[in-house]
């Protein structure tokens, strides 16, 4: 059963992750903690100014909850091989990231684990 795994991944906080945030992340997301979610992709927007996925997750009461996942611009993800067809509607994924403030069901993506075992990291090219 898929459940919201709301684990504080403090270890991740100490890894330098660079992604491009082209809007006010402080206003929307909290850097205080990192959470992990598992679920099924409902919708995909693979477009600039930032990609967006809707993820259906079963909560602890077995109810379906939709999370709004936000990622970097397409151009940055594409450089790392994260292209449009890597995550499609219906795919089962596990994603970690920074949650929205005040319990808002939003997540700023750090890393996505795909069902084939591969991992996509939302990290800007430093060079």
């Amino acid at each position, binding site marked *: 059963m898929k459940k919201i795994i709301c684990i504080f991944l403090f270890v991740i906080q100490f890894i*330098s992750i*660079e992604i*491009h*945030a082209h809007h*006010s992340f*402080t206003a929307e997301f909290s850097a205080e903690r990192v959470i992990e979610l598992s679920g099924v992709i409902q919708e995909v927007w693979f477009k*600039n100014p930032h990609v967006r996925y809707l993820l259906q997750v079963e909560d602890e009461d077995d109810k379906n909850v939709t999370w709004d996942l936000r990622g970097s611009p397409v151009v940055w993800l594409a450089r790392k091989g994260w292209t449009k067809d890597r995550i499609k509607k219906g795919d089962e994924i596990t994603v970690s990231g920074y949650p929205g403030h005040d319990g808002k069901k939003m997540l*700023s993506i750090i890393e996505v684990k795909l069902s084939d075992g591969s991992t996509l990291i939302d990290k800007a090219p430093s*060079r």
Partner: protein
Amino acid sequence: MNWIFKNKLSLIPILLLIYTNCMPSEIDGIWRISLQDSNRTLIGDLEIETTESGLIGYLEGGPIDIKIDGENSIEIIADSRDVRGFIFNRRMTGTFEENFMSGTYQQEGAAAQREEPGPWSAVRYENKVVESMIAEHPDITGTWAATQELDFRKYTMSLTDKGENWLETYMPYYDQPDVRCTSIGLPALITYSFPFEIIESEGRLTMLYEYQSKVRRIWMEKDEPSEFMPPSRMGFSVGKWEGSTLVIKTNLLEKTIRDFRGELVSENATIEERYFLSDDGQNLNAIIILHDAENYKKAPIRRRQWVRNKATEIFPYSCDPDSFYIPMYQENKMQMYIDRSELRF
């Protein structure tokens, strides 16, 4: 006589107070500060003034908290915005002498881009103009990929009343031009961590920015825009070589925001950029100064570095604002957005 003597004595504490608060202290002036993160070096201008209300300081044109204790202990706290968009502080503590200060710093607050504690130092800034003997200017053409070196990414700036009043009305995210695919313009575009390409042709340099697929022309042989050229967020840019440094001055700008905080850039602003290559020619460094006295008490400064990278291509950047408008509609915020139309540009 006795009365005068008595009253003169009573003035001594007052005079001392005036002296200590109003006279320039030995720390006053402009310093060049550098800070060593675990894998990069940041550089900035640190300005310190003694005023009637005490010691005040600025880093890259933005206000900082500064305290001196005892004979020569100093503490500086400066805010910054990490590459992911989170705001944090750097606390620098140490000691100062007449022409040198140094110590250690640490990051405070939750940030995605973690910095290990490290050393910092500062020396008196001397604005020496070094005349280059090079007859031909260096070749800066090619594709450049951004690094995260040099830039303190100072977050808050020292605003005028007009600038503060504007900021109070600004709504982060909802008022930001580029989230709805509208041009962010200068100076923000220059500071974003996307690659850009420089092409040289007769009388001009052309800069192709990946972000928002923007084209910028730097005119090397004319000083004035063509008649009726409209203002824009890319402005009108004139370039001159000062030895091996390319100096670009830009005006004819349209209103935009300076950075993610939403501080205003007025139509009367000018931007000064200074580009120079590293000794090995593999890094392009830039200092970007925004002159906008309507909104800023001190000119905001950013520094950027790019690395020459033949493997980097400028990717196309098509933009679809659905990811902005659809969630806003779903959250019943569309009317709020429409009601604020006059506040956006």
